[in-house]
């Protein structure tokens, strides 16, 4: 009932209409609005009126233009950066230490025996190519099966158009091709005349997609040392990939052998405080303060005395000779619960030295979408993170490597030994996947695949880097050498013999610098508050306006719309009436009546309201429809009580 009443009232209001014309409305608006310009338009003389009219228009357009700029600025989501630097109690970084050599040579010797003999013989051939070497006869026959999968060859490019290919072993037994056969007598001299007159004689290796197929590529090297190293890495990778993980861990360096002494701040620690992780490049790696099971350690004092002090033994005598030529410990500082990518971010520590590393934590805190394109935890990256099996957090390196491994599995059908395996896939080896080396090299050098990975991986929003100031000194000093080696040997091996030497021992100091953090944090340059105050400022500056002024303006527009509607309706009604009246015998209205209808606004609007009611609302029998025709001729004062009653 209430609603009906309300509707009826609204209807009557509609019927009555706004009660004024456009001009009245405009003048009323100008006089009563809170915006500054319009008031002056109507207050001044014609000259000023004109000036103020244009000024108001100008200011209004200025306001809108500037608003456009402001909104654009807001939508560009700029950020401002703030930098803070100083010392605070911080989580000590996780420290990963590895030996540069992945396995003890004494442990893997039986696996690599054939390979080593092969490479020794090959080196001999390269270095002393005179046929009929006496030492060859004494040694047992070589297993050339390994060799034939990926042979090392020499290419003589003295004659640029007809390069001569010489297989290191076969060239001695059978002539390779026609060209080689023709030149057979001068073979020795060819091998030993490298790089004369700018021509190169590189050591090469052909790789075929399938055994015996023609789809082969030669990978050129300008240096035999590199060729041999690469060849050895490929071969040993293939051999070691067949060894089960437990066995590989056993073959690597054990924590108790490697970590001789440990001191964190004033508290002693030992190899048990380190978490073992198997790293494909470096074998067993040990992580201090990884924060996987226990709380991460805090450090609240700068200086070497409050940091981590380690003594490591890398036992250089037990290195695999052809696999890694650099000797030392590989270490890396990284965040808790992140995987250490030593090839990228790791540093070396040299044997026989004390390496001091001052740490500054360089943090970058970014805002996520839409301010910058970064990911908080990697869940929105379309690459399956293979490193999640280590329970480590997302990082861009993990993403890139996972992306590569996924491509590798997709294209070559097996996983690369250096990266974690997706489920249900095996590592590549020469037996099961004869063409894997070719597949891998072509994939590795494929710029397209790299770009795909770069495009699909996103960096993390919170980026932490550890800036290191590295300094080195000889350690132990000559005077202290004896007793230090003695004690350490005794502690490790329980023997009074010195089992350590300068070539294996490394001291590490890792500590926070005086200023241990530098944080660059982003904040939004334009917030909604900023936008509103800027919009208000602009409106206020040019016209003294506010939101209320906008509402006022909107009100005026609605009112003028009403006027339009009412006018249109009354016009239509007028047409209708004309037709109706033409049929009626009544005399048509006099001119004065018509004039009055137009000048007396009250009347005009009333009659205008008649039509919308009929059309917009269904006829309501409860309320008597007002007789508009009669109302029209009724005097003014009758109107008041009538409307009030409603």
């Amino acid at each position, binding site marked *: 009932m209430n609603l009906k009443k309300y509707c009826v009232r609204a209807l009557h209001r509609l019927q009555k209409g706004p009660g004024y014309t456009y001009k009245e409305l405009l003048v009323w608006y100008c006089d009563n609005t809170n915006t500054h310009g319009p008031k002056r338009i109507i207050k001044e003389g014609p000259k000023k009126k004109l000036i103020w009219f244009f000024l108001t228009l100008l200011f209004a357009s200025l306001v809108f233009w500037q608003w456009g700029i402001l909104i654009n600025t807001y939508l560009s989501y700029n950020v401002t950066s703030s930098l803070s630097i100083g010392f605070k109690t911080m989580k000590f970084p996780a420290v990963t230490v590895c030996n540069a050599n992945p396995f003890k040579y004494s442990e893997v010797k039986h696996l690599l025996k054939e390979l080593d003999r092969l490479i020794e013989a090959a080196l001999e051939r390269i270095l002393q190519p005179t046929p009929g070497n006496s030492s060859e006869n004494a040694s047992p026959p070589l297993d050339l099966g390994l060799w034939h999968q990926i042979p090392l060859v020499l290419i003589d490019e003295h004659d640029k158009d007809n390069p001569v290919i010489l297989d290191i072993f076969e060239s001695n037994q059978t002539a390779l091709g026609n060209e080689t056969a023709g030149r057979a007598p001068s073979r020795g001299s060819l091998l030993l005349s490298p790089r004369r007159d700018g021509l*190169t004689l590189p050591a090469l290796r052909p790789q075929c997609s399938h055994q015996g197929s023609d789809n082969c590529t030669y990978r050129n090297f300008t240096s035999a040392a590199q060729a041999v190293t690469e060849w050895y890495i490929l071969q040993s990778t293939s051999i070691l990939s067949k060894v089960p993980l437990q066995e590989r861990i056993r073959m690597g360096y054990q924590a108790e052998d490697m970590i001789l002494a440990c001191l964190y701040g004033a508290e002693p620690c030992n190899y048990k405080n380190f978490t073992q992780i198997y790293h494909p490049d470096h074998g067993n790696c040990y992580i201090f303060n990884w924060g996987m099971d226990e709380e991460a350690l805090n450090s609240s004092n700068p200086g070497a005395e409050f940091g981590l002090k380690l003594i490591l033994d890398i036992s250089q*005598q037990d290195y*695999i000779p052809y696999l890694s030529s650099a000797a*030392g410990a590989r270490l890396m500082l990284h965040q808790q619960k992140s995987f250490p990518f030593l090839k990228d971010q790791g540093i070396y520590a040299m044997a026989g030295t004390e390496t001091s590393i001052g740490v500054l934590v360089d943090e970058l805190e970014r805002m996520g979408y839409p301010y910058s394109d970064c990911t908080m935890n990697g869940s929105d990256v379309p690459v399956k993170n293979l490193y999640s099996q280590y329970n480590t957090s997302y990082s861009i390196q993990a993403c890139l490597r996972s992306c590569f491994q996924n491509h590798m599995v997709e294209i070559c059908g097996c996983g690369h030994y250096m990266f974690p395996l997706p489920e249900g896939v095996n590592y590549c080896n020469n037996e099961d996947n004869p063409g894997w080396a070719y597949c891998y090299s072509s994939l590795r050098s494929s710029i397209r695949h790299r770009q795909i990975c770069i495009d699909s991986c996103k*960096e993390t929003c919170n980026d932490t880097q550890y800036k290191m100031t590295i300094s080195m000194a000889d350690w132990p000093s000559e005077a202290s050498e004896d007793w230090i080696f003695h004690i350490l040997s005794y502690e490790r091996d329980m023997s009074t013999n010195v089992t350590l030497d300068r070539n294996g021992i490394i001291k590490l100091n890792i500590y926070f610098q005086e200023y241990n953090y530098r944080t660059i944090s982003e904040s939004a340059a334009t917030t909604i508050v900023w936008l509103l105050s800027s919009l208000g400022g602009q409106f206020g500056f040019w*016209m003294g306006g506010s939101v209320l002024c906008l509402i006022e303006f909107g009100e005026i527009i609605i009112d003028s719309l009403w006027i339009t509607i009412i006018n249109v309706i009354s016009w239509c009604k007028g047409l209708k009436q004309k037709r109706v009246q033409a049929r009626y015998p009544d005399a048509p209205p006099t001119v004065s009546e018509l004039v009055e209808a137009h000048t*007396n606004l009250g009347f005009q609007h009333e009659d205008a309201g008649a039509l919308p009611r009929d059309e917009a609302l269904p006829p309501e029998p409860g309320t008597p429809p007002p007789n508009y025709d009669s109302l029209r001729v009724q005097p003014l004062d009758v109107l008041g009580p009538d409307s009030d009653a409603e």
Partner: protein
Amino acid sequence: GAMAPGKKITARIKRTLPVKGPQAPTLSELMRWYCLNTNTHGCRRIVVSRGRLRRFIWILLTLSAVGLILWQCAELLMNYYSASVSVTVQFQKLPFPAVTICNINPYKYSSMKDYLSELDKETKKALETFYGFSEGKSKVRRSVDEWNSTGSDFFKQIPLLKFEEFSKTATDFRSGQKRKIEGSVFHKDSSIVNSGDSNDIIGFQLCDANNSSECALYTFSSGVNAIQEWYKLHYMNIMAQIPLETKEKLSYSADDLLLTCFFDGLSCDKRHFTRFHHPLHGNCYTFNSGENGTILSTSTGGSEYGLQVVLYIDEADYNPFLVTSTGAKIIVHDQNEYPFIEDIGTEIETAAATSIGMHFTRSRKLSKPYSDCTETGADIPVENLYNKSYSLQICLHSCFQKAMVDSCGCAQYAQPLPAGAEYCNYKKNPNWMYCYYRLHEKFVKEQLGCQQICKDACSFKEWALTTSIAQWPSTVSEDWMLRVLSWDKGQKINKKLNKTDLANLMVFYKDLNERFISENPANTLVILLSNFGGQLGLWMSCSVVCVIEIVEVFFIDSLSIVMRRQWQKAKKWWNDRKRDRSGKPPQASNLERQGHDNPVCVDEDLPTFNTALRLPLPQDSPLPRTPPPNYSTLRLETAFTDQLPDTLEVGQH
């Protein structure tokens, strides 16, 4: 009738928009009108308030609000040119920087024998005389004999002296005679020499050749520095006379220096390196110099994908006096940048693998008026002698070289030659060393003005390096490694390589994050105006309209009122005089209610809706209790009808 259309229009405009002064007759009327009708908030209060105290408070408040606005806006203006810093990190394929590698020793000592044998001989002699050092006893005697016979001019030019601090006498090492020291004494090493030190001090004297009484004595606390500095002076002198082509031949070739090269998993060779001759370091080789138009880039971080080179450092062929350390020097720089290897190079140890992890940062500053930096260096009045893009270092070196050519007449050896100049040598410029030392001292003390002229570059690229060292080759791999590398080196050298002749270098990106630090203007005009608007609105609810009002009322209207007053006075005075002459009664002024508030003459126009309400009722009409309902609307209608203004005007007057 026959007026031109242009004139007609102007006449019409004049008629429709007549120029008239303000309606307010007096200044106080004008002010009152302004205060009542202005859009700013304080003024109205002043006029409306009752009571003196209240009015006074409102005046005070309004004035303080005006003051605050002025102050805040001034602050806003002054802080307009401030910059905000933004740091973006972009993960992307990065361009690999140029890597310049030099042997620390500039020229092969064996091939330099022809040029340096005299100098070396005398250096050895000096060592023997002062310190009793000799390489072999038998040699000494012979060389001393030789000494007397040859008699070189190295010591004539710059005598090495050993002298006692207090006696002010010095022993010339050649003649053994004591001589008096004239001129000022410069301690090159330290300004404070321990007076209790009984050690003799060694130094050398540089004299102005034109005026022999003008001498400067350079002393060193250690003979090592003295001998090296003295040797270097002569060495530069000798080198200045050798043409560039010869020097390039005397230095190391790419084959000499580079044993192996590996980049991004692929082999590379000397074709990837560009030779660059450095005056102090001889032939240097720049990897990825971009000279052939392509710049290599990396799309994978990590040590395997960077540059790996093995360098051959032939330690046996080192110059014993010029360089005392062994190894190589490298610098990572942009392709457009000049490698100032002597200033900011990193040294590489032999028998070790040096791994250098890079982190790339690009910075960009805003130039004028935000900060005093230069975009291209074109606005710096110093000619760029280097064929590379501008940097502060280049500017300082060029500036010094220019000063050197201007005041000494020849160019210093370590820097490029300006057009038309040639390097100093004491055959042609016997005075140059004295001049150089004097000039260098001025330069260091910032008296040459170079530091004032040269500005920072606005944008620069920086590769932060993390250097670490491992033993290389390891003890177990040493044997085969050296054998294979010797084979790589080929037949040129017929000896097996020693591991102290080799240096392994790895330069790689730690990650492919490019950190871009840029300054942006903190303010734009839009924001400045917004802030103005905020201030104006906060304190007085004012806007540009108010400002225009103020200008209109306080300047134009007030002025014209004053002018009109004066004019009326003058007119009155003139009329009085006239009347005095003619004897006519004065015309009474009938203006009682005037100004903008006077609705009768509010305007030349018809009254508006508002003013119409305030119109005085016609006196003759009866006073009805309620005004006729359509009175005002009728008025309103006529207010906007297109009546001719002139007729209205006529009606009003």
